[in-house]
Protein backbone atom coordinates (compact mmCIF):
# COMPACT_ATOMS: atom_id res chain seq x y z
CA UNK A 1 0.00 0.00 0.00
CA UNK A 2 2.69 2.43 1.09
CA UNK A 3 4.83 1.84 -2.00
CA UNK A 4 1.87 2.16 -4.29
CA UNK A 5 0.81 5.45 -2.72
CA UNK A 6 4.15 7.09 -3.37
CA UNK A 7 4.19 6.08 -7.01
CA UNK A 8 0.70 7.01 -8.01
CA UNK A 9 -1.41 10.12 -7.49
CA UNK A 10 -4.72 9.30 -5.89
CA UNK A 11 -7.64 11.68 -6.02
CA UNK A 12 -7.96 11.22 -2.29
CA UNK A 13 -5.43 9.60 -0.01
CA UNK A 14 -5.90 9.34 3.74
CA UNK A 15 -3.05 7.82 5.74
CA UNK A 16 -2.82 7.02 9.43
CA UNK A 17 -5.81 9.19 10.29
CA UNK A 18 -6.97 9.29 13.91
CA UNK A 19 -9.86 11.15 15.48
CA UNK A 20 -11.33 10.75 18.92
CA UNK A 21 -14.29 12.45 20.49
CA UNK A 22 -13.81 12.77 24.25
CA UNK A 23 -12.01 9.47 24.52
CA UNK A 24 -14.02 7.56 21.92
CA UNK A 25 -11.86 6.64 18.95
CA UNK A 26 -14.16 7.33 16.01
CA UNK A 27 -11.39 6.98 13.43
CA UNK A 28 -8.48 4.70 14.25
CA UNK A 29 -5.37 4.68 12.05
CA UNK A 30 -7.45 4.79 8.88
CA UNK A 31 -5.87 4.35 5.46
CA UNK A 32 -8.05 5.03 2.45
CA UNK A 33 -7.09 5.54 -1.19
CA UNK A 34 -9.40 6.59 -3.97
CA UNK A 35 -8.66 6.68 -7.69
CA UNK A 36 -10.05 9.30 -10.03
CA UNK A 37 -13.29 8.15 -11.64
CA UNK A 38 -14.05 5.46 -9.06
CA UNK A 39 -17.46 4.78 -7.60
CA UNK A 40 -16.61 3.46 -4.17
CA UNK A 41 -19.14 2.12 -1.75
CA UNK A 42 -18.35 2.25 1.94
CA UNK A 43 -20.27 -0.01 4.29
CA UNK A 44 -19.92 -0.84 7.93
CA UNK A 45 -22.00 -1.34 11.04
CA UNK A 46 -23.36 1.59 13.04
CA UNK A 47 -20.59 3.54 14.72
CA UNK A 48 -17.95 2.25 12.31
CA UNK A 49 -16.89 5.83 11.59
CA UNK A 50 -18.41 6.27 8.12
CA UNK A 51 -19.94 9.68 8.69
CA UNK A 52 -17.01 10.79 10.89
CA UNK A 53 -14.76 9.99 7.95
CA UNK A 54 -16.84 12.25 5.65
CA UNK A 55 -16.70 14.96 8.32
CA UNK A 56 -12.92 14.78 8.19
CA UNK A 57 -12.78 14.96 4.40
CA UNK A 58 -15.17 17.92 4.22
CA UNK A 59 -13.57 19.91 7.02
CA UNK A 60 -16.39 19.63 9.50
CA UNK A 61 -13.88 18.17 11.96
CA UNK A 62 -10.09 18.07 11.91
CA UNK A 63 -8.09 14.85 12.40
CA UNK A 64 -5.99 14.46 15.56
CA UNK A 65 -3.20 12.99 13.46
CA UNK A 66 -2.57 11.62 9.98
CA UNK A 67 -2.72 13.10 6.51
CA UNK A 68 -5.59 13.56 4.08
CA UNK A 69 -4.49 14.69 0.65
CA UNK A 70 -6.54 15.66 -2.36
CA UNK A 71 -5.08 15.26 -5.83
CA UNK A 72 -1.73 14.43 -4.28
CA UNK A 73 -0.80 17.95 -3.24
CA UNK A 74 -3.58 19.62 -1.25
CA UNK A 75 -3.66 18.96 2.46
CA UNK A 76 -7.33 18.85 3.45
CA UNK A 77 -6.98 19.36 7.24
CA UNK A 78 -5.46 22.80 6.66
CA UNK A 79 -8.56 24.08 4.91
CA UNK A 80 -11.98 25.05 6.21
CA UNK A 81 -15.35 23.86 4.91
CA UNK A 82 -15.87 26.29 2.09
CA UNK A 83 -12.27 26.10 0.89
CA UNK A 84 -12.57 22.32 0.66
CA UNK A 85 -15.85 22.73 -1.21
CA UNK A 86 -14.13 25.03 -3.67
CA UNK A 87 -11.54 22.33 -4.42
CA UNK A 88 -14.41 20.39 -5.92
CA UNK A 89 -15.55 18.19 -3.05
CA UNK A 90 -19.30 18.09 -2.60
CA UNK A 91 -21.28 16.35 0.09
CA UNK A 92 -24.78 15.05 0.49
CA UNK A 93 -25.65 14.72 4.14
CA UNK A 94 -27.20 11.71 5.79
CA UNK A 95 -30.43 13.53 6.59
CA UNK A 96 -31.50 15.62 3.61
CA UNK A 97 -30.05 19.07 4.12
CA UNK A 98 -31.56 21.54 1.70
CA UNK A 99 -32.55 25.18 2.14
CA UNK A 100 -36.15 24.61 3.17
CA UNK A 101 -37.28 28.22 2.86
CA UNK A 102 -35.83 28.57 -0.65
CA UNK A 103 -37.47 27.21 -3.75
CA UNK A 104 -36.11 24.16 -5.52
CA UNK A 105 -34.81 26.45 -8.26
CA UNK A 106 -33.05 28.70 -5.73
CA UNK A 107 -31.49 25.68 -4.06
CA UNK A 108 -29.93 24.73 -7.36
CA UNK A 109 -28.92 28.30 -8.12
CA UNK A 110 -27.11 28.51 -4.78
CA UNK A 111 -25.27 25.30 -5.58
CA UNK A 112 -24.39 26.10 -9.17
CA UNK A 113 -20.65 26.13 -9.82
CA UNK A 114 -19.18 29.59 -10.09
CA UNK A 115 -17.86 32.35 -7.91
CA UNK A 116 -18.80 32.30 -4.24
CA UNK A 117 -17.65 35.84 -3.48
CA UNK A 118 -19.79 38.57 -1.97
CA UNK A 119 -19.31 41.04 -4.83
CA UNK A 120 -20.00 38.45 -7.50
CA UNK A 121 -23.21 37.45 -5.73
CA UNK A 122 -24.51 41.02 -5.89
CA UNK A 123 -24.51 41.14 -9.66
CA UNK A 124 -24.87 37.50 -10.64
CA UNK A 125 -27.74 36.74 -12.99
CA UNK A 126 -27.98 33.17 -14.27
CA UNK A 127 -27.17 33.19 -18.01
CA UNK A 128 -28.84 30.93 -20.55
CA UNK A 129 -26.20 28.19 -20.22
CA UNK A 130 -26.74 28.12 -16.47
CA UNK A 131 -30.52 28.11 -16.86
CA UNK A 132 -30.28 25.20 -19.30
CA UNK A 133 -28.01 23.37 -16.89
CA UNK A 134 -30.49 23.82 -14.04
CA UNK A 135 -33.38 22.71 -16.27
CA UNK A 136 -31.38 19.65 -17.19
CA UNK A 137 -30.71 18.85 -13.53
CA UNK A 138 -34.38 19.36 -12.66
CA UNK A 139 -35.25 16.80 -15.32
CA UNK A 140 -32.58 14.40 -14.04
CA UNK A 141 -33.81 14.56 -10.46
CA UNK A 142 -37.44 14.51 -11.52
CA UNK A 143 -38.47 17.81 -9.95
CA UNK A 144 -39.39 19.84 -13.05
CA UNK A 145 -42.92 20.59 -11.92
CA UNK A 146 -41.81 21.38 -8.35
CA UNK A 147 -39.23 24.00 -9.36
CA UNK A 148 -41.08 26.85 -7.65
CA UNK A 149 -42.01 24.86 -4.58
CA UNK A 150 -40.31 25.66 -1.34
CA UNK A 151 -37.87 22.83 -0.73
CA UNK A 152 -39.40 22.33 2.71
CA UNK A 153 -42.66 21.27 1.05
CA UNK A 154 -41.03 18.37 -0.79
CA UNK A 155 -41.42 14.75 0.26
CA UNK A 156 -38.47 13.12 1.99
CA UNK A 157 -37.31 11.25 -1.10
CA UNK A 158 -37.61 14.37 -3.22
CA UNK A 159 -35.43 16.27 -0.76
CA UNK A 160 -32.79 13.54 -1.08
CA UNK A 161 -32.97 13.96 -4.83
CA UNK A 162 -32.78 17.71 -4.64
CA UNK A 163 -29.65 17.41 -2.56
CA UNK A 164 -28.15 15.10 -5.16
CA UNK A 165 -29.17 17.70 -7.76
CA UNK A 166 -27.32 20.32 -5.76
CA UNK A 167 -24.19 18.16 -5.99
CA UNK A 168 -24.69 17.91 -9.73
CA UNK A 169 -25.07 21.68 -10.03
CA UNK A 170 -21.80 22.08 -8.19
CA UNK A 171 -20.15 19.81 -10.77
CA UNK A 172 -17.78 18.52 -8.10
CA UNK A 173 -14.82 16.29 -8.85
CA UNK A 174 -15.52 14.21 -5.80
CA UNK A 175 -19.06 13.51 -4.62
CA UNK A 176 -19.49 12.23 -1.08
CA UNK A 177 -22.93 10.74 -0.76
CA UNK A 178 -24.07 9.73 2.71
CA UNK A 179 -26.93 7.22 2.69
CA UNK A 180 -28.73 8.50 -0.42
CA UNK A 181 -31.41 5.84 -0.24
CA UNK A 182 -32.39 6.36 3.39
CA UNK A 183 -36.13 6.67 3.73
CA UNK A 184 -36.81 6.01 0.06
CA UNK A 185 -39.23 3.50 -1.47
CA UNK A 186 -37.76 0.57 -3.41
CA UNK A 187 -38.54 2.23 -6.73
CA UNK A 188 -36.96 5.50 -5.63
CA UNK A 189 -33.94 3.63 -4.30
CA UNK A 190 -33.47 1.86 -7.61
CA UNK A 191 -33.74 5.14 -9.52
CA UNK A 192 -31.20 6.72 -7.19
CA UNK A 193 -28.86 3.82 -7.91
CA UNK A 194 -29.28 4.35 -11.65
CA UNK A 195 -28.58 8.05 -11.25
CA UNK A 196 -25.37 7.38 -9.33
CA UNK A 197 -24.29 4.79 -11.91
CA UNK A 198 -24.86 7.29 -14.70
CA UNK A 199 -22.55 9.72 -12.92
CA UNK A 200 -19.78 7.19 -12.36
CA UNK A 201 -16.79 7.95 -14.55
CA UNK A 202 -17.74 11.60 -14.98
CA UNK A 203 -17.25 12.18 -11.27
CA UNK A 204 -15.48 10.29 -8.55
CA UNK A 205 -18.06 9.15 -6.06
CA UNK A 206 -18.01 7.77 -2.55
CA UNK A 207 -21.31 6.32 -1.40
CA UNK A 208 -22.01 5.34 2.18
CA UNK A 209 -24.87 2.91 2.44
CA UNK A 210 -26.54 0.32 4.64
CA UNK A 211 -29.03 -1.16 2.22
CA UNK A 212 -27.27 -4.22 0.75
CA UNK A 213 -29.68 -4.51 -2.21
CA UNK A 214 -28.75 -0.98 -3.14
CA UNK A 215 -25.06 -1.69 -2.55
CA UNK A 216 -25.24 -4.70 -4.89
CA UNK A 217 -26.87 -2.51 -7.53
CA UNK A 218 -24.26 0.25 -7.52
CA UNK A 219 -21.16 -1.70 -6.53
CA UNK A 220 -21.37 -4.51 -9.07
CA UNK A 221 -17.85 -4.97 -10.44
CA UNK A 222 -16.53 -2.19 -8.22
CA UNK A 223 -14.61 -1.93 -5.00
CA UNK A 224 -16.38 -1.90 -1.65
CA UNK A 225 -14.69 -0.76 1.55
CA UNK A 226 -15.81 -2.10 4.91
CA UNK A 227 -15.18 0.11 7.91
CA UNK A 228 -15.15 -1.24 11.42
CA UNK A 229 -14.28 0.59 14.63
CA UNK A 230 -12.79 3.48 12.72
CA UNK A 231 -10.48 1.62 10.38
CA UNK A 232 -10.69 -0.33 7.14
CA UNK A 233 -11.59 -3.94 7.83
CA UNK A 234 -11.32 -5.12 4.24
CA UNK A 235 -11.75 -4.04 0.66
CA UNK A 236 -12.87 -5.95 -2.42
CA UNK A 237 -15.86 -6.78 -4.60
CA UNK A 238 -19.31 -7.09 -3.06
CA UNK A 239 -19.13 -10.87 -3.13
CA UNK A 240 -15.67 -10.91 -1.61
CA UNK A 241 -16.57 -8.69 1.32
CA UNK A 242 -19.90 -10.40 1.90
CA UNK A 243 -18.12 -13.73 2.22
CA UNK A 244 -15.20 -12.41 4.23
CA UNK A 245 -15.06 -14.08 7.62
CA UNK A 246 -14.07 -10.89 9.42
CA UNK A 247 -16.99 -9.00 7.88
CA UNK A 248 -19.39 -11.73 8.92
CA UNK A 249 -17.89 -11.56 12.40
CA UNK A 250 -18.49 -7.84 12.85
CA UNK A 251 -21.91 -7.82 11.22
CA UNK A 252 -23.22 -10.93 12.92
CA UNK A 253 -21.47 -10.18 16.16
CA UNK A 254 -19.61 -13.49 16.12
CA UNK A 255 -16.78 -13.96 18.54
CA UNK A 256 -13.34 -13.09 17.24
CA UNK A 257 -11.42 -16.25 16.33
CA UNK A 258 -7.85 -16.43 17.43
CA UNK A 259 -5.34 -16.99 14.63
Amino acid at each position, binding site marked *: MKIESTQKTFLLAAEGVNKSFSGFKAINNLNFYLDTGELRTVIGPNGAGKTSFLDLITGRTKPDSGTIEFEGNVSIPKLN*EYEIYRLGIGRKFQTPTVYTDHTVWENLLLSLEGSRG*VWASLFHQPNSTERDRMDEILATINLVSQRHWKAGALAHGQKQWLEIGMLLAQNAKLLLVDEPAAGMTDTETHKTGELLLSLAGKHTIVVIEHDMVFVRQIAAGRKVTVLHQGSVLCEGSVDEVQNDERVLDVYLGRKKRSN
Partner: protein
Amino acid sequence: MQRHVSKVELVTASVIALFLVVVFPGLHAAGAVSDFTIKLWGKYLCYGLLAISVDLLWGYTGLLSLGQALFFSLGGYMLGMNLMLMIGEDGQYFKSGNNPSLLPDFMVILGRTELPSFWKPFYNFPFAVAMVVLVPGLLAFLFGFLGFRSRIKGVYFSILTQALTYVAAVFFQNALIMGSNNGFTDFKRILGCDIRASATQRGLYIATALALVLVYAFCRWLTTTKFGLVQRAVRDSETRALFSGYAAANYKLFVFVVASIIGSIGGALYLPQAGILNPTEMMPEKSLEAVVWCAVGGRGTLIGPIIGAIGTNALKSWATRAFPDLWLIILGGLFILIVLFLPKGIFGLLGQARDFFAKRKPEAASATAEPAKP
Protein backbone atom coordinates in the same frame (compact mmCIF):
# COMPACT_ATOMS: atom_id res chain seq x y z
CA MET B 1 -35.42 34.41 -8.33
CA GLN B 2 -38.38 33.95 -6.08
CA ARG B 3 -38.99 37.42 -4.77
CA HIS B 4 -39.24 39.43 -7.92
CA VAL B 5 -40.77 42.84 -7.59
CA SER B 6 -44.34 42.53 -8.78
CA LYS B 7 -46.25 45.30 -10.53
CA VAL B 8 -48.67 45.64 -7.62
CA GLU B 9 -45.80 46.11 -5.20
CA LEU B 10 -44.06 48.60 -7.46
CA VAL B 11 -47.22 50.71 -7.84
CA THR B 12 -48.04 50.57 -4.12
CA ALA B 13 -44.50 51.45 -3.11
CA SER B 14 -44.37 54.32 -5.62
CA VAL B 15 -47.65 55.76 -4.36
CA ILE B 16 -46.52 55.61 -0.73
CA ALA B 17 -43.12 57.07 -1.66
CA LEU B 18 -44.76 59.90 -3.60
CA PHE B 19 -47.02 60.65 -0.66
CA LEU B 20 -44.18 60.67 1.86
CA VAL B 21 -41.70 62.66 -0.21
CA VAL B 22 -43.98 65.08 -2.10
CA VAL B 23 -47.61 65.21 -0.94
CA PHE B 24 -47.11 65.28 2.82
CA PRO B 25 -44.51 68.09 2.80
CA GLY B 26 -46.69 69.84 0.19
CA LEU B 27 -49.57 69.83 2.65
CA HIS B 28 -47.21 71.23 5.28
CA ALA B 29 -46.13 74.04 2.93
CA ALA B 30 -49.80 74.78 2.31
CA GLY B 31 -50.43 74.93 6.03
CA ALA B 32 -52.64 71.83 6.25
CA VAL B 33 -50.05 69.95 8.32
CA SER B 34 -48.57 71.55 11.43
CA ASP B 35 -44.86 72.00 12.19
CA PHE B 36 -45.28 69.67 15.13
CA THR B 37 -46.71 66.91 12.96
CA ILE B 38 -44.08 67.10 10.25
CA LYS B 39 -41.31 67.02 12.85
CA LEU B 40 -42.94 64.03 14.53
CA TRP B 41 -43.23 62.15 11.25
CA GLY B 42 -39.66 63.04 10.38
CA LYS B 43 -38.59 61.31 13.58
CA TYR B 44 -40.83 58.29 12.89
CA LEU B 45 -39.22 57.83 9.49
CA CYS B 46 -35.76 57.99 11.09
CA TYR B 47 -36.88 55.20 13.41
CA GLY B 48 -37.99 53.41 10.26
CA LEU B 49 -34.40 53.51 9.03
CA LEU B 50 -33.18 52.11 12.34
CA ALA B 51 -35.79 49.35 12.14
CA ILE B 52 -34.69 48.41 8.60
CA SER B 53 -31.14 48.24 9.88
CA VAL B 54 -32.20 45.77 12.59
CA ASP B 55 -34.31 43.76 10.19
CA LEU B 56 -31.63 43.43 7.53
CA LEU B 57 -29.56 41.71 10.21
CA TRP B 58 -32.20 39.87 12.19
CA GLY B 59 -34.96 39.13 9.71
CA TYR B 60 -32.82 38.46 6.68
CA THR B 61 -29.54 37.13 8.04
CA GLY B 62 -30.50 35.69 11.40
CA LEU B 63 -28.18 38.02 13.31
CA LEU B 64 -30.06 39.48 16.25
CA SER B 65 -28.07 42.62 16.85
CA LEU B 66 -28.92 44.31 20.13
CA GLY B 67 -26.62 47.20 19.39
CA GLN B 68 -28.04 48.99 16.40
CA ALA B 69 -28.90 52.08 18.44
CA LEU B 70 -25.15 52.55 18.84
CA PHE B 71 -24.76 53.14 15.10
CA PHE B 72 -27.88 55.33 15.09
CA SER B 73 -26.35 57.49 17.82
CA LEU B 74 -22.92 57.54 16.22
CA GLY B 75 -24.46 58.94 13.05
CA GLY B 76 -26.08 61.60 15.21
CA TYR B 77 -22.83 62.43 16.96
CA MET B 78 -20.95 62.82 13.67
CA LEU B 79 -23.44 65.31 12.24
CA GLY B 80 -23.89 66.79 15.72
CA MET B 81 -20.25 67.87 15.82
CA ASN B 82 -20.89 70.02 12.75
CA LEU B 83 -24.12 71.46 14.19
CA MET B 84 -22.39 72.30 17.50
CA LEU B 85 -19.70 74.25 15.66
CA MET B 86 -22.35 76.01 13.58
CA ILE B 87 -23.94 77.50 16.71
CA GLY B 88 -21.13 80.06 16.56
CA GLU B 89 -22.11 83.52 17.66
CA ASP B 90 -25.54 82.38 18.85
CA GLY B 91 -24.00 80.52 21.80
CA GLN B 92 -24.81 81.75 25.33
CA TYR B 93 -21.16 82.17 26.36
CA PHE B 94 -20.26 84.15 23.25
CA LYS B 95 -23.13 86.54 23.93
CA SER B 96 -21.86 87.07 27.48
CA GLY B 97 -18.34 87.62 26.12
CA ASN B 98 -16.72 84.55 27.63
CA ASN B 99 -16.19 82.58 24.43
CA PRO B 100 -14.08 84.56 21.95
CA SER B 101 -12.91 81.51 19.99
CA LEU B 102 -16.50 80.34 19.31
CA LEU B 103 -16.25 76.94 20.98
CA PRO B 104 -19.34 74.87 21.71
CA ASP B 105 -20.66 76.03 25.09
CA PHE B 106 -19.91 72.79 26.95
CA MET B 107 -16.21 73.17 26.11
CA VAL B 108 -16.20 76.62 27.70
CA ILE B 109 -17.60 75.07 30.87
CA LEU B 110 -14.68 72.61 30.75
CA GLY B 111 -12.35 75.58 30.67
CA ARG B 112 -11.06 74.98 27.17
CA THR B 113 -9.90 77.88 25.10
CA GLU B 114 -9.06 76.04 21.91
CA LEU B 115 -10.94 73.53 19.79
CA PRO B 116 -9.48 69.96 19.96
CA SER B 117 -7.83 69.15 16.62
CA PHE B 118 -10.13 66.24 15.78
CA TRP B 119 -13.10 68.62 15.99
CA LYS B 120 -11.70 71.05 13.44
CA PRO B 121 -12.55 69.20 10.19
CA PHE B 122 -16.18 69.08 11.33
CA TYR B 123 -16.59 72.74 10.39
CA ASN B 124 -16.95 71.27 6.92
CA PHE B 125 -20.46 69.85 6.41
CA PRO B 126 -19.53 67.34 3.66
CA PHE B 127 -16.77 66.04 5.93
CA ALA B 128 -19.28 65.48 8.74
CA VAL B 129 -21.60 63.67 6.31
CA ALA B 130 -18.71 61.47 5.14
CA MET B 131 -17.99 60.62 8.79
CA VAL B 132 -21.64 59.64 9.26
CA VAL B 133 -20.94 56.82 6.80
CA LEU B 134 -17.30 56.06 7.59
CA VAL B 135 -17.12 55.96 11.39
CA PRO B 136 -19.99 53.53 12.05
CA GLY B 137 -19.03 51.58 8.92
CA LEU B 138 -15.48 51.15 10.17
CA LEU B 139 -16.57 50.24 13.68
CA ALA B 140 -19.02 47.65 12.31
CA PHE B 141 -16.30 46.30 10.04
CA LEU B 142 -13.78 45.86 12.86
CA PHE B 143 -16.29 44.37 15.28
CA GLY B 144 -17.80 42.14 12.60
CA PHE B 145 -14.44 41.05 11.24
CA LEU B 146 -13.27 39.85 14.63
CA GLY B 147 -16.62 38.40 15.66
CA PHE B 148 -17.65 36.59 12.51
CA ARG B 149 -14.17 35.24 11.84
CA SER B 150 -14.26 33.63 15.29
CA ARG B 151 -17.67 32.22 14.31
CA ILE B 152 -19.52 34.02 17.05
CA LYS B 153 -23.17 33.47 16.39
CA GLY B 154 -26.65 33.20 17.85
CA VAL B 155 -27.13 34.44 21.35
CA TYR B 156 -23.41 35.15 21.76
CA PHE B 157 -23.55 37.64 18.94
CA SER B 158 -26.56 39.31 20.57
CA ILE B 159 -24.79 39.55 23.91
CA LEU B 160 -21.63 40.94 22.36
CA THR B 161 -23.47 43.63 20.40
CA GLN B 162 -25.31 44.58 23.56
CA ALA B 163 -22.01 44.80 25.42
CA LEU B 164 -20.53 46.88 22.62
CA THR B 165 -23.30 49.48 22.76
CA TYR B 166 -23.15 49.53 26.55
CA VAL B 167 -19.40 50.11 26.53
CA ALA B 168 -19.85 52.87 23.94
CA ALA B 169 -22.53 54.51 26.09
CA VAL B 170 -20.25 54.50 29.14
CA PHE B 171 -17.42 55.83 26.98
CA PHE B 172 -19.51 58.74 25.70
CA GLN B 173 -20.87 59.44 29.19
CA ASN B 174 -17.29 59.99 30.30
CA ALA B 175 -16.03 61.65 27.15
CA LEU B 176 -16.01 65.27 28.33
CA ILE B 177 -14.90 66.47 24.96
CA MET B 178 -18.00 64.92 23.37
CA GLY B 179 -20.36 66.58 25.83
CA SER B 180 -20.39 63.63 28.28
CA ASN B 181 -23.80 63.05 29.92
CA ASN B 182 -25.44 66.10 28.45
CA GLY B 183 -24.46 65.31 24.89
CA PHE B 184 -25.24 67.80 22.17
CA THR B 185 -28.16 70.20 22.12
CA ASP B 186 -29.26 73.76 21.41
CA PHE B 187 -28.52 73.60 17.68
CA LYS B 188 -29.12 76.79 15.76
CA ARG B 189 -28.29 76.27 12.11
CA ILE B 190 -27.85 73.50 9.57
CA LEU B 191 -26.15 74.44 6.30
CA GLY B 192 -26.73 78.06 7.22
CA CYS B 193 -30.51 77.69 7.62
CA ASP B 194 -32.28 78.42 10.88
CA ILE B 195 -32.96 74.96 12.31
CA ARG B 196 -36.26 75.98 13.94
CA ALA B 197 -37.69 77.54 10.78
CA SER B 198 -40.68 75.81 9.31
CA ALA B 199 -39.03 75.50 5.88
CA THR B 200 -35.88 73.94 7.37
CA GLN B 201 -37.91 71.35 9.26
CA ARG B 202 -39.76 70.58 6.04
CA GLY B 203 -36.45 70.20 4.21
CA LEU B 204 -35.17 67.82 6.90
CA TYR B 205 -38.38 65.85 6.69
CA ILE B 206 -38.06 65.57 2.89
CA ALA B 207 -34.42 64.46 3.22
CA THR B 208 -35.50 61.77 5.71
CA ALA B 209 -38.37 60.54 3.56
CA LEU B 210 -36.10 60.45 0.53
CA ALA B 211 -33.44 58.55 2.46
CA LEU B 212 -36.03 56.02 3.61
CA VAL B 213 -37.33 55.51 0.06
CA LEU B 214 -33.79 55.08 -1.30
CA VAL B 215 -32.77 52.70 1.49
CA TYR B 216 -35.97 50.72 0.94
CA ALA B 217 -35.26 50.48 -2.80
CA PHE B 218 -31.65 49.50 -2.13
CA CYS B 219 -32.62 46.77 0.34
CA ARG B 220 -35.35 45.55 -1.98
CA TRP B 221 -32.77 45.18 -4.69
CA LEU B 222 -30.21 43.61 -2.35
CA THR B 223 -32.58 40.97 -1.08
CA THR B 224 -33.61 39.89 -4.58
CA THR B 225 -30.05 39.36 -5.80
CA LYS B 226 -28.15 36.13 -5.38
CA PHE B 227 -26.62 37.86 -2.37
CA GLY B 228 -30.09 37.89 -0.84
CA LEU B 229 -30.41 34.16 -1.45
CA VAL B 230 -27.10 33.49 0.28
CA GLN B 231 -28.11 35.82 3.11
CA ARG B 232 -31.23 33.79 3.79
CA ALA B 233 -29.30 30.55 3.31
CA VAL B 234 -26.92 31.66 6.06
CA ARG B 235 -29.91 32.55 8.23
CA ASP B 236 -31.66 29.20 7.78
CA SER B 237 -28.68 26.87 7.73
CA GLU B 238 -25.26 28.36 8.12
CA THR B 239 -23.53 24.98 8.13
CA ARG B 240 -25.14 24.05 4.83
CA ALA B 241 -24.07 27.39 3.34
CA LEU B 242 -20.47 26.64 4.31
CA PHE B 243 -20.80 23.27 2.60
CA SER B 244 -22.14 25.06 -0.48
CA GLY B 245 -18.86 26.96 -0.63
CA TYR B 246 -20.03 30.26 0.82
CA ALA B 247 -17.79 32.00 3.32
CA ALA B 248 -20.69 32.88 5.61
CA ALA B 249 -18.51 35.25 7.65
CA ASN B 250 -17.91 37.52 4.65
CA TYR B 251 -21.62 37.72 3.88
CA LYS B 252 -22.46 38.53 7.47
CA LEU B 253 -19.73 41.14 7.62
CA PHE B 254 -21.07 42.85 4.51
CA VAL B 255 -24.63 42.92 5.88
CA PHE B 256 -23.46 44.13 9.26
CA VAL B 257 -21.55 47.06 7.73
CA VAL B 258 -24.42 47.98 5.38
CA ALA B 259 -27.00 47.77 8.17
CA SER B 260 -24.87 49.88 10.49
CA ILE B 261 -24.48 52.59 7.87
CA ILE B 262 -28.24 52.60 7.29
CA GLY B 263 -28.78 52.99 11.04
CA SER B 264 -26.21 55.75 11.16
CA ILE B 265 -27.90 57.70 8.36
CA GLY B 266 -31.16 57.40 10.32
CA GLY B 267 -29.45 58.82 13.40
CA ALA B 268 -27.85 61.69 11.50
CA LEU B 269 -31.24 62.71 10.13
CA TYR B 270 -32.85 62.26 13.54
CA LEU B 271 -30.51 64.62 15.33
CA PRO B 272 -31.54 67.99 13.79
CA GLN B 273 -35.22 67.05 14.05
CA ALA B 274 -35.04 65.89 17.66
CA GLY B 275 -32.69 68.74 18.58
CA ILE B 276 -30.86 66.74 21.26
CA LEU B 277 -28.57 63.76 21.53
CA ASN B 278 -26.96 62.20 24.57
CA PRO B 279 -25.38 58.85 25.48
CA THR B 280 -28.60 57.37 26.89
CA GLU B 281 -29.59 56.90 23.23
CA MET B 282 -26.89 54.22 23.08
CA MET B 283 -28.10 52.21 26.05
CA PRO B 284 -29.06 48.62 25.21
CA GLU B 285 -32.78 49.23 25.82
CA LYS B 286 -32.90 51.62 22.86
CA SER B 287 -31.67 48.83 20.61
CA LEU B 288 -34.18 46.45 22.17
CA GLU B 289 -36.97 48.89 21.35
CA ALA B 290 -35.93 48.78 17.69
CA VAL B 291 -36.05 44.98 17.84
CA VAL B 292 -39.62 45.23 19.16
CA TRP B 293 -40.60 47.52 16.26
CA CYS B 294 -39.32 44.86 13.86
CA ALA B 295 -41.18 42.07 15.58
CA VAL B 296 -44.38 44.11 15.71
CA GLY B 297 -44.26 45.14 12.06
CA GLY B 298 -43.04 41.82 10.71
CA ARG B 299 -39.43 40.82 10.42
CA GLY B 300 -38.04 39.33 7.27
CA THR B 301 -39.96 41.87 5.22
CA LEU B 302 -38.89 45.41 4.45
CA ILE B 303 -42.25 47.13 4.85
CA GLY B 304 -42.87 45.40 8.19
CA PRO B 305 -40.17 47.19 10.20
CA ILE B 306 -41.22 50.58 8.83
CA ILE B 307 -44.84 49.92 9.80
CA GLY B 308 -43.64 48.65 13.18
CA ALA B 309 -41.44 51.68 13.83
CA ILE B 310 -44.11 54.21 12.87
CA GLY B 311 -46.96 52.30 14.51
CA THR B 312 -45.22 51.63 17.81
CA ASN B 313 -43.92 55.18 18.09
CA ALA B 314 -47.29 56.69 17.18
CA LEU B 315 -48.80 54.50 19.90
CA LYS B 316 -46.04 55.64 22.24
CA SER B 317 -46.71 59.33 21.49
CA TRP B 318 -50.36 58.84 22.28
CA ALA B 319 -50.01 56.46 25.23
CA THR B 320 -47.29 58.41 27.03
CA ARG B 321 -49.69 61.37 27.10
CA ALA B 322 -52.89 59.44 27.80
CA PHE B 323 -51.47 56.84 30.22
CA PRO B 324 -47.98 58.00 31.22
CA ASP B 325 -47.57 55.32 33.88
CA LEU B 326 -48.81 52.46 31.77
CA TRP B 327 -46.79 52.99 28.60
CA LEU B 328 -44.15 50.33 29.29
CA ILE B 329 -46.82 47.83 30.28
CA ILE B 330 -48.66 48.55 27.04
CA LEU B 331 -45.47 48.06 25.04
CA GLY B 332 -44.67 44.81 26.83
CA GLY B 333 -48.21 43.55 26.42
CA LEU B 334 -48.16 44.40 22.73
CA PHE B 335 -44.90 42.51 22.29
CA ILE B 336 -46.25 39.44 24.06
CA LEU B 337 -49.47 39.49 22.02
CA ILE B 338 -47.56 39.82 18.77
CA VAL B 339 -45.14 37.02 19.60
CA LEU B 340 -47.99 34.74 20.65
CA PHE B 341 -50.52 35.43 17.93
CA LEU B 342 -48.73 37.16 15.07
CA PRO B 343 -45.29 35.59 14.81
CA LYS B 344 -44.84 37.32 11.47
CA GLY B 345 -46.00 40.68 12.79
CA ILE B 346 -48.67 43.02 11.52
CA PHE B 347 -47.45 42.86 7.95
CA GLY B 348 -47.39 39.07 8.19
CA LEU B 349 -51.16 39.21 8.73
CA LEU B 350 -51.51 39.82 4.99
CA GLY B 351 -49.62 36.64 4.23
CA GLN B 352 -51.54 34.68 6.86
CA ALA B 353 -54.83 35.90 5.40
CA ARG B 354 -53.68 34.97 1.90
CA ASP B 355 -52.68 31.49 3.05
CA PHE B 356 -56.03 31.13 4.79
CA PHE B 357 -57.96 31.92 1.62
CA ALA B 358 -55.54 29.90 -0.51
CA LYS B 359 -56.33 26.83 1.59
CA ARG B 360 -60.01 27.26 0.90
CA LYS B 361 -59.42 27.45 -2.84
CA PRO B 362 -56.52 25.13 -3.53
CA GLU B 363 -56.78 25.29 -7.33
CA ALA B 364 -56.86 29.04 -7.56
CA ALA B 365 -53.88 29.17 -5.24
CA SER B 366 -51.66 26.98 -7.35
CA ALA B 367 -52.52 29.05 -10.43
CA THR B 368 -51.50 32.30 -8.78
CA ALA B 369 -48.67 30.97 -6.63
CA GLU B 370 -45.70 31.75 -8.85
CA PRO B 371 -45.31 33.02 -12.38
CA ALA B 372 -43.64 30.50 -14.67
CA LYS B 373 -39.97 31.04 -15.29
CA PRO B 374 -38.80 31.54 -18.86
